[in-house]
């Protein structure tokens, strides 16, 4: 027969068919297949495709090979393995419990940390176009040009719309700052609220962001300049618990303007509450159009850096190229700003620094933690994530080590079992499989228990970490289980492999004779693992100590004035500029020893401007500024190094200024010469501001930062205008003797509230204590410290569980030895010491290793603070002593028990 007449079907497919087909059917079906194929070839009907299709269609249950016998055998083996695992777990309850406990603690810690990290890294994913949204960041043009800030001037968006066609949409958000807002229904507007989270947004806001609507039309609602959009939560606040979105629609909300008038807005949309995982958090939105006058006057500016600018790029845009392209925009568009406002060329203003526009992907805005903050919501702490990841992995490593140690320690007890199995014909591989299966079962049950634990612990953790993590959505997500199963298999495999290889290596004859190869190797590895465990936990203990110490240190650091007992009254600015009447009343209170007004309060003095000395050729310096009245410095009680305070009797003082010592360094002045010198605004103001005094540096911002140069301006100064001028405060130093109890304080606050009400009932009464405000700047660090404490305790518990298990094992092994020693006359104390020595040595070694490691990391962390606690030796001593004590206590439980055992009993065995 020639090849032409009988072409061969594709070999590979045919071989595949032979592999899967039932052996009884192979011959005739293959014959059929070949015949068909030849038929197709003869007709020229794409035979290969048809053939492949036919083969695939033969792959059906009734025609494939039955599952082979080999696996049936394995099933029996599998069953026997399960039985053995169960019996062993029951026989050695102590080990089982220790093992499981260690695993549960380790896995649940790891799970919680995993959930936390996932939560932190999945911000802003709810926006439909989240992968195409970018925020425009720029350098911090008010000082350090190397720093990046999240806001830009209003004109950046205009320029981008004009010059960068790659953007589908550009949208801006402006925080309108704290406003007093009231529902129109309330009489006298007495039902007013202080709203910080009112933002003005552009008409295309909802084309970019996907915040969900309850009622209202996203595409038209922002077209009406006097519409207002509120979240459901806000609706309940304004219109009561029973109000429904449809009822609230069309109601009027009034916002108090800076000039004291009220502007009415109509509720035209109710939004769902902003998801917790959004970097933009708001209570109400108004159209930017409502501020059209302001935008008309200032929209061309590049220095009104209150706007967050977002761009939605077109699909398939090369963002890197786009970012490169938009760098041409600032030199083209910013010069009018620098020239008209500062009388400087673009280059002079930037000082040669590139005015970079950076495109930050939406997904990174929260988690990158850089820029460190923005006015519209929270920013993540990448450092915390790093620390938590490290701790999660360490704790998991600890519990895996624990598991390995305890499993191998039990080796002797199971050597006979291994021996018998081998004699009966078990291969080494089978025994390895058995032990790996056992560890997988252990870890699986540990994981299930850990899930239950996490379920119970998630809400306390949420409180602790100030999070809103919910386990339920994860439990509904198949990917979550996939991760869990992968975790169980991988960690079970890894943690089980060492005991499995070790135990399966026993020689049957030896192990049946009872010669147990406890082998130096096994012990060495176990000891090594214990050392690693303790190194980790001791290092964590030391680190925790230092974190606590640093926080205590930082909150007690001398900040240049006594921040205790200062009560601050807010919203004074809303009473108008002249508040002498209120001041006179406050002065009358016997509880206050000093009363002063300021336009900003530490630690939140953020406004600043560019100044220069009036000497010729002077360079421009950036100074923070704070407007104060004659008495404010007296309230703070800061020290004057030179010159004098503002004096209410000298009318000219309103154009004088006071500097802090740090400012002198920037201006290049000596302390002796400073008084009498003058500064002027760098933006070209002619008026000179004469320096009449110099005060010692004091902290007017968070203690994490160095003290910045500061200029103190008289509150009636009409030359210097600053953005913070709108909000002012009265600060009162309390007389501790007049306020002895909390009751006194409460009465005082009630009286103050009444006082404010009589002056203007629409102004909300708000107050704060300065020392508490300083405390809040450390809030996130404190939270981290608490969480760190908890995890450190977890790590220590796991390490101790491991140590306890090993000690128990060793006690069992040495029963006879200790019995003989006792018979020969050793005392209980001697015996306990002899027993403990083995383990204390390990802990000492761990201490030696842990100290330098902890030292290194603590030092790294302290770099974040301007005021660092010294790395003192005693902390190391205390921490290690604590670790030593805990481990000794753990061991002593076993050592004392074995030392006290009656030798008759321990020796008569067998």
């Amino acid at each position, binding site marked *: 027969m020639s090849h032409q007449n009988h072409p061969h079907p594709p070999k590979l497919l045919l071989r595949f068919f032979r592999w899967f087909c039932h052996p009884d*059917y192979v011959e005739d079906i293959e014959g059929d297949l070949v015949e068909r194929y030849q038929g197709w070839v003869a007709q020229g009907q794409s035979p290969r495709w048809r053939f492949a299709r036919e083969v695939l269609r033969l792959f059906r249950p009734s025609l494939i090979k039955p599952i082979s016998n080999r696996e049936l055998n394995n099933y029996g083996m599998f069953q026997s393995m399960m039985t053995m695992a169960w019996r062993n777990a029951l026989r050695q309850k102590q080990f089982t419990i220790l093992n499981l406990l260690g695993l549960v603690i380790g896995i649940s810690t790891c799970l919680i940390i995993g959930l936390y990290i996932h939560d932190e890294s999945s911000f802003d994913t709810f926006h439909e176009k989240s992968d195409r949204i970018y925020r425009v960041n720029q350098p911090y043009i008010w000082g350090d040009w190397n720093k990046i800030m999240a806001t830009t001037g209003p004109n950046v968006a205009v320029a981008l719309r004009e010059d960068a066609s790659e953007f589908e949409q550009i949208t801006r958000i402006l925080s309108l700052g704290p406003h007093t807002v009231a529902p129109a229904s309330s009489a006298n507007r007495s039902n007013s609220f202080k709203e910080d989270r009112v933002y003005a947004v552009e008409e295309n806001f909802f084309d970019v962001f996907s915040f969900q609507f309850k009622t209202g039309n996203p595409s038209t609602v922002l077209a009406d300049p006097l519409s207002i959009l509120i979240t459901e939560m806000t609706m309940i606040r304004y219109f009561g618990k029973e109000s429904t979105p449809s009822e609230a629609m069309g109601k009027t909300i009034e916002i108090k303007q800076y000039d004291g008038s009220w502007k009415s807005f109509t509720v035209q949309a109710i939004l769902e509450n902003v998801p917790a995982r959004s970097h933009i958090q708001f209570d109400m939105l108004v159209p930017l159009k409502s501020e059209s006058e302001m935008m008309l006057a200032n929209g061309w500016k590049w220095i009104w850096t209150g706007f967050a600018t977002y761009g939605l790029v077109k699909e398939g845009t090369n963002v890197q190229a786009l970012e490169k392209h938009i760098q041409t925009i600032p030199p083209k568009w910013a010069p009018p700003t620098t020239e008209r406002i500062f009388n400087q060329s673009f280059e002079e203003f930037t000082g040669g620094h590139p005015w970079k526009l950076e495109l930050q992907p939406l997904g990174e805005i929260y988690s990158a933690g850089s820029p460190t903050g923005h006015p519209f919501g929270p920013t993540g702490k990448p450092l915390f994530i790093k620390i938590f990841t490290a701790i999660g992995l360490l704790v998991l490593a600890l519990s895996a080590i624990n598991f390995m140690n305890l499993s191998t320690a039990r080796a002797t007890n199971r050597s006979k079992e291994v021996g018998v199995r081998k004699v009966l014909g078990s291969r080494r591989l089978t025994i390895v499989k058995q032990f790996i299966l056992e560890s997988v079962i252990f870890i699986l049950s540990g994981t299930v228990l850990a899930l239950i634990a996490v379920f119970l612990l998630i809400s306390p953790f949420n409180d602790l970490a100030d999070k809103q993590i919910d386990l339920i959505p994860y439990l509904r997500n198949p990917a979550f289980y996939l991760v869990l199963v992968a975790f169980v298999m991988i960690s079970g495999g890894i943690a089980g492999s060492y005991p499995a290889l070790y135990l399966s290596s026993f020689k049957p004859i030896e192990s049946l004779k009872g010669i147990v190869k406890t082998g130096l190797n096994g012990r060495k590895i176990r000891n090594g693992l214990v050392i690693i465990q303790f190194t980790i936990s001791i290092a964590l203990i030391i680190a925790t100590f230092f974190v606590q110490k640093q926080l205590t240190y930082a909150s007690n650091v001398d900040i240049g004035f006594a921040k205790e007992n200062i009560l601050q009254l807010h919203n004074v600015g809303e009473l108008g500029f002249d508040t002498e009447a209120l001041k006179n009343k406050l002065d009358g209170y016997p509880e206050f020893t000093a009363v002063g007004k300021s336009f900003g309060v530490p630690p939140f003095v953020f406004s600043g401007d560019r100044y220069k000395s009036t000497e010729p050729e002077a360079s421009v310096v950036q100074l923070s500024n704070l407007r104060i009245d004659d008495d404010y410095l007296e309230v703070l009680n800061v020290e004057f190094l030179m010159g004098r305070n503002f004096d209410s009797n000298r009318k000219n003082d309103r154009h004088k200024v006071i500097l802090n010592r740090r400012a002198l360094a920037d201006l290049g002045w000596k302390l002796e010469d400073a008084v009498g010198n003058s500064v002027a605004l760098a933006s070209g103001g002619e008026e000179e501001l004469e320096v009449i005094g110099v005060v010692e540096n004091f902290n007017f911002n968070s203690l994490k930062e160095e003290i910045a140069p500061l200029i103190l301006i008289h509150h009636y100064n009409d030359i210097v205008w600053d953005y913070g001028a709108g909000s002012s405060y009265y600060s009162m130093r309390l007389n501790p003797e007049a306020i002895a109890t909390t009751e006194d304080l409460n009465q005082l606050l009630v009286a103050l509230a009444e006082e404010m009400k009589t002056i203007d009932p629409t102004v909300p009464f708000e107050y704060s204590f300065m020392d508490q405000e300083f405390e809040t700047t450390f809030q996130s660090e404190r939270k981290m410290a608490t969480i760190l404490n908890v995890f450190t305790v977890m790590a220590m518990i796991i390490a101790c569980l491991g140590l306890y298990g090993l000690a128990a094992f060793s006690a069992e092994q040495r029963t006879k030895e200790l019995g003989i020693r006792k018979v020969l006359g050793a005392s209980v104390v001697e015996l306990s010491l002899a027993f403990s020595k083995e383990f204390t040595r390990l802990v000492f070694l761990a201490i030696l290793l842990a100290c330098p490691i902890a030292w290194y990391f603590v030092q790294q962390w302290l770099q974040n603070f301007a005021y660092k606690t010294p790395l003192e030796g005693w902390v190391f001593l205390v921490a290690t002593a604590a670790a030593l004590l805990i481990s000794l206590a753990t061991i002593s439980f076993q050592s004392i028990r074995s030392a006290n055992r009656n030798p008759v009993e321990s020796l008569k065995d067998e």
Partner: protein
Amino acid sequence: MGKYQLGEFEEVVMLTVAILQGDAYGIAIIEEMQNRLDRKVSIGSLQTVLRRLEKKGYLQSEFGEATAVRGGKRKRFFSLTQHGQAILRETKEQRVGLWNAIPNYALNK
């Protein structure tokens, strides 16, 4: 009898086997069905049914002689068993009974 109802495809396959009279092997059945019924059947679906019917005892099979044409593989010829014939007949009687029960005017219109 009457416990097992033949499926439509099963019935067609058995009828085709009967038509082919001892010459009924895989490809022959497929081609016969193609010719008579214009119905395209894959080897997989046919073989599944053949094996099922054989297991039920409606069909029996035996190998033929090897030929060079099919890559040297033998054909498996299927034929009806007694039981299979009885089932087929019963199926036919059921159908005819149903047809006869239809009032004349229902289909003549």
